[in-house]
């Protein structure tokens, strides 16, 4: 266990930290340059833009949380027929390979022949070329992100919902609360531990999104600057430009940002999470 952890987690982390202080040649061979990479990092406007894109992606995909809550609440009704079928369908995207998901969605988003634009045309809207449009490409990818992560969050919320005692719902109903009121005043507050868990995981995961971008956006896409996430930039710098030292520095910057965001979230939880 320790050997596996050390070999596959700790050793690469230490090596990456070391690389971030070096500059690499085209075929390996590194020279120590101290904080040089980090200094260029903070002046690199492509890094800033990639962080901005990643933040927008994260925020949009966080919209999956309220959607998942509502769906989970609906699935949790007693006596709902075909509950297990619904659960399978919602969970299928989670167990589908991201690259396969991206390929299919790329076809769906095709400007001329994709289903999405076809459906839009039925209501008289001419859909844009989603994946090459600077305004819409990131939104298009975020929608796929939501689709992929929804099932997982629903399952977690379902588990959280089971923990809410039925008597509370009945008491609220007796006091005259309708379904919506019950949801807002009974379900949501008691679900906050699950919401917290899901939100933390979502932020950590979406900040590292790469595979969707890699399949759906080509390097000659004019919208690449407005869509590129920070891990995609890491891949570009590390494996296409072969500047491994700089890429390692980007990786550590990302590590620092995610750690910071997670710490902030943990601090804030005291204010809004009700542990029963």
């Amino acid at each position, binding site marked *: 266990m320790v050997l596996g952890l050390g070999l596959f987690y700790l050793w*690469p982390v230490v*090596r990456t930290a070391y690389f971030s202080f070096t500059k690499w*040649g*085209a*075929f*390996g061979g590194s020279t120590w340059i101290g904080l040089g990479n980090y200094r260029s990092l903070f002046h690199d406007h492509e890094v800033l833009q990639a962080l901005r894109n990643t933040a927008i992606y994260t925020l949009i995909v966080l919209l999956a949380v309220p959607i998942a809550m509502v769906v989970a609440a609906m699935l949790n009704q007693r006596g709902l027929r075909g509950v297990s079928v619904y659960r399978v369908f919602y969970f299928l995207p989670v167990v589908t390979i991201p690259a396969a998901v991206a390929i299919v969605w790329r076809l769906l*988003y*095709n*400007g*001329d*022949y*994709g289903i999405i634009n076809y459906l839009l045309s039925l209501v008289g809207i001419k859909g844009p*070329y989603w*994946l*090459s*449009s600077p305004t819409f490409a990131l939104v298009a990818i975020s929608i796929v992100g939501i689709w992929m992560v929804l099932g997982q969050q629903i399952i977690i919320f379902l588990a959280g919902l089971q923990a809410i005692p039925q008597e509370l719902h009945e008491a609220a109903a007796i006091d005259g609360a309708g379904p919506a009121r019950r949801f807002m005043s009974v379900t949501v507050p008691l679900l906050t531990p699950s919401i917290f868990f899901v939100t933390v995981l979502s932020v950590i995961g979406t900040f590292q999104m790469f595979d969707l971008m890699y399949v759906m956006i*080509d*390097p*000659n*896409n*004019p919208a*690449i600057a407005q869509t590129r996430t920070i891990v995609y930039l890491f891949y570009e710098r590390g*494996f*296409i*430009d*072969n500047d491994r030292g700089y890429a390692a520095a980007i990786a550590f910057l990302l590590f620092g940002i995610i750690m910071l965001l997670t710490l902030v979230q943990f601090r804030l939880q005291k204010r809004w999470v009700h542990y029963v």
Partner: protein
Amino acid sequence: MSDAEAKGSSERAADAVLSRRALLKGLAGAAGLAVVPGGLLAACGGSKSKAASGGATTSASSTAAASGSASSSGSTGKAVHLTCGYWDPNMNGPSQQIAAAFQKANPDISVEMQQTPPAEYWTKLQTAVSAGGGPDIISMNGPNYQLYASNGMLAPLDEYISKDHVDLSPFSQGLRDVYKYKNAYYAMPFNFSTIGLWYNKQLFDDAGVKYPDENWTWDDLKAAAQKLTNKSKGVYGIPATSDPAYMPQEEYYNTIYQAGGYIISPDGTKSGFDDPKTIEGLKFWTDLQAMGVSPSYQQMLDTNPSAMFISGKVAMFYGGPWRAPQWAKANLSHVDVTQLPKGTSQSRTCIHGTAFAINAHSKHKDEAWEVIKSFTSKDGEEAWGATGILIPAYQGTQDVWLKSLPQYNLKAYIDELQTALPYPVSKNTAVWQKDAESILSQAWAGKVDITTAAKQLAAKMNDDLAKEK
């Protein structure tokens, strides 16, 4: 197993038990290695085992290697296993046949042909080679040649060439010059490509336009494109890019040369992108967009223009010889090819060619040389040419290629050879090619004027070239 043969009979009993355990371990190891792509392994810090040099292998020699016995190269009567990396998907079927034929003629050498999709080939190769791995035989092209040769990643071939008295004169001077580095050869020329104008005879007939021929000029093409464009049917004259990934060679390098411009100065220090004639060559494509005879750049990013050509949505298509087997596979009998339309200069097209090189880290360089020698010999080139997937570079073998797909006027590609200018390369071509891709894509998308983009690219490219020194 060769090791068992070498030992005495008294040790064989013990060996049988031991080697079974070792075999199981080896199988598990090979299975594990089969799951991890060779590139990842190499990136994890350079395992020098044969399995890392090109992805999973399932041959018996790899289990022998994994189970701790010495590598099989030294033992007699055992086939040496080589890997050969390439990117062209057209080569998949033919390469298996030719590799099998080679093995029949040379029983102690087996070659495994490994394809990596073009978009990932160079990334994967660079990663593998940096870690001391990579295939034994490497398909090489002009833009990457100097980078690999100058960094000692390719084995020098001059000794082999003189030892086996290989005659290089059947290969054109242009190709030979590309694959020399500091007056030594590090790769053997293999094939060449020029670019031709493909056209859909059906669409031409429907619009009542005469088929293109070798006397066409830019104006002829533009006029025809206008007559052929029929937006109500969703048909366009010509796409302003044949494939967003191949654009330079299939598109604007040709028109730049046709306009009398250049991409890089002969000494490799200055960019030609801000030269007015070069900009004329680039404007050819934005003019087509402005005239409305091409689908928009965004449309072409979503749907590959070659798919548009196959389904009859565009009437003309600038394409390399690798398009011929592509069209043949799609049963396109109503298309044909001719020379590219003339610009103001003599030159019609850009010529490029790939080569085979030996990985400097290969443990079987002698055997790898045998393979390369065979592939690039007169008979070898004829065998490749007969498959129709590439134009052999060996003088006198091209007829075989012409006959391979007789339904197309492939001669057009050969006729363009006289005036073809070489593919522009420098020590680290990939860097400024990437800049060209991202800067010019803004112009193709109509966001930036092409002249501005070209000048911006020239400045960036000059920077990149300066860093090469």
